[in-house]
């Protein structure tokens, strides 16, 4: 086993895992609070990638070139706009179904996912899009010879740092503020929370906004790093992020991050040492196996169905 490849794939896996974790947060919070899989969440991430490229081009056209300023502005604009998308999706497709049958919200979510994909395809074209390389530069570690080194790009470092900051902020919002307390109360018992004066509809909206904003962070960072995307990226990334959420224990915030990192590491070590063609098959198989053998995940509590 090649030590350099192992370290390199671990670094790549951590980066990939941070991205999965950021998206998984949206799945896990929504599932925790209203018990539905927000199938359109992956497409919200895809929208964030497009918005990043659009805002980047717009700022460049306006003559703003200083990298830190551009980066922060793009990130904030994308987060705001994507959060609005997240809110609208909930308002249009899920809120009217609050008291409907069990399958209705999931089917509606699949419809919403189709709508978002086709909306972006029709307005931006079906071809692969890109952004100019925005952050170049890299570090080399453990260098001993021309082909033996571990390379970490600045964009990768940025992804991990921003993921940690984003998760920290979210953790503070949920654990340290009155709004977060209301979120946790709704998650524990929606009817009781409503009886005690929590506006549950507002809290559910907030959860969708927070989830979309975190997906926007992921979308922006991935676009800065890879610079290439199309209207279909949300599907596979969304399923993998959902796998991460289930792996960590759906409903648990630290679980989502942990699940994301485990999945990212597993996937990148698998593609480094076994086979790149089958890396998606590996991730999906992991999903199936986890759901069959440990549906409550690593940090989740088993669900008891009540009459």
């Amino acid at each position, binding site marked *: 086993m090649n030590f350099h490849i192992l370290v390199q794939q671990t670094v790549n896996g951590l980066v990939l895992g941070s991205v999965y974790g950021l998206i998984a947060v949206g799945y896990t919070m929504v599932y925790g609070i209203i018990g539905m899989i927000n199938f359109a969440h992956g497409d919200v991430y895809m929208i964030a990638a497009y*918005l990043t490229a659009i805002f980047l081009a717009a700022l460049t056209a306006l003559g703003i070139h200083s990298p830190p300023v551009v980066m922060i502005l793009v990130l904030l604009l994308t987060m705001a706009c994507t959060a609005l998308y997240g809110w609208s999706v909930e308002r249009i497709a899920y809120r009217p179904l609050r008291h409907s049958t069990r399958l209705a919200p999931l089917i509606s979510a699949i419809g919403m996912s189709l709508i978002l994909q086709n909306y972006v395809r029709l307005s931006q074209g079906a071809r692969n899009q890109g952004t100019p390389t925005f952050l170049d530069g890299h570090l080399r570690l453990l260098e001993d010879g021309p082909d033996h080194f571990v390379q970490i790009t600045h964009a990768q470092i940025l992804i991990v740092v921003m993921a940690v900051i984003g998760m920290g902020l979210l953790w503070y919002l949920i654990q340290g503020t009155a709004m977060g307390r209301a979120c946790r109360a709704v998650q524990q018992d929606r009817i009781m929370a409503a009886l005690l004066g929590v506006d549950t509809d507002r809290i559910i909206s907030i959860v969708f906004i927070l989830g979309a904003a975190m997906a926007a962070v992921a979308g922006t960072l991935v676009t800065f790093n890879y610079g290439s995307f199309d209207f279909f990226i949300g599907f596979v990334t969304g399923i993998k992020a959902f796998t991460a959420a289930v792996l960590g224990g759906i409903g648990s915030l630290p679980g989502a991050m942990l699940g994301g990192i485990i999945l990212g590491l597993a996937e990148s070590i698998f593609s480094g040492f076994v086979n790149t063609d*089958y890396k998606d098959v590996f991730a999906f198989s992991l999903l199936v196996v986890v759901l069959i053998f440990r549906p409550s995940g690593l940090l989740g509590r088993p669900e008891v169905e009540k009459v």
Partner: protein
Amino acid sequence: MRNSWLRDALVTGLVALLLFAPMTGVALSGYTLEGHWQRPLWLALGVVIGRLGLGWLWQRRQGAPASSSGRGWSAWIDAHRPQLIGAALAVAFVLPWFIGKYWLNVAILAWIYVLLALGLNIVVGLAGLLDLGFVAFYAVGAYGYALGFKYLDLSFWTALPAGALLAGCFGVMLGFPVLRMHGDYLAIVTLGFGEIIRLVLNNWMSFTGGPNGVRVPFPSLFGLEFGRRAGPGHVTFHEYFNLPYSNEYRDIFFYLLLLVVVSGMVFVVRRLRRMPLGRNWEALREDEIACRSLGIQPVSVKLSAFGLGAMTGGLGGVFFAASQGFVNPTSFTFMESAHILAMVILGGMGSTGGVIVAAVVLTVLPEMLRDFAEYRGLLFGCAMVAMMVWRPRGLMGMRRALFHRSGVAE
């Protein structure tokens, strides 16, 4: 009252403008942007008008008593059911002689979709198990025939039951561990399974040919081939009956065969629904805990629905492969599953007639509206959301008149 609507509509319009402006107002072109400033304005205007229209509708609906229009229509259908079915069947059987080659192929595709939608309807509509990877069984059937022919020299008539059985086995194999799961998890696992099958078909170059696909032969009729010239030791259809060669015979034959299979399937489903097994499916869909306390085994009942649905999917796959003459993995994406699911939902989950109508309409309509092909996915998505919000039981609705016919309850 009026003012609050107007304010609502304006706020909605503003939100819509904010949503649409960056995404539709500019389009990425390379690393620069091209402006389409009028697009978001029109879209937002459309949203405002839609919002006002909805507000008006809601107010009217609140004022008026619940209307019973449509009741009479469905009663009429109920009363003339046998005649209607007979007429539809007769029309379907004579149809291939009156439509051209192009529409005959569309009709064949429509019946394949009807078969698939009927299979998915057993799983989603009757048993209430949301299967997002139905296309996997379709792929198993299609590749079962294609690879069976390539490696084992299977004929269509052997592949038909073999493909269905193979898909059924896959269904049971997947279903056995998975069916104990919570409903939403089941949906995701089946989705993952569907993608695994497609990715394996796509990547296993040496066995499946990967994206290049596999060639598939056309079925023969009692050894009579439909080509221009027969293979060694065979006779062609047109030579045997002393007819001039035309490949229309082949399509008509295929159409009729498919129609017979679909009719058989409809018959089986209708019978099953009245048998204890079918009743168990529907009971389980409504309340699993109540069923368990009445002694129904959820796993075996679900497994029978899942296996039967998978078999139907496999059957559809064999027909699809034979009609196309070629299969490759691009026919088995998640979009295909969503497409079949949309048919089941629009037809009304559980309603056989509704699902058939929806499958035919959703296959034929896009062919007629070629100019709008771009918007197909968007319309499907909108239809799914709108159905869930307004008519979760489907356009035709589900009929629950189960007991009064035998005179037990009334």
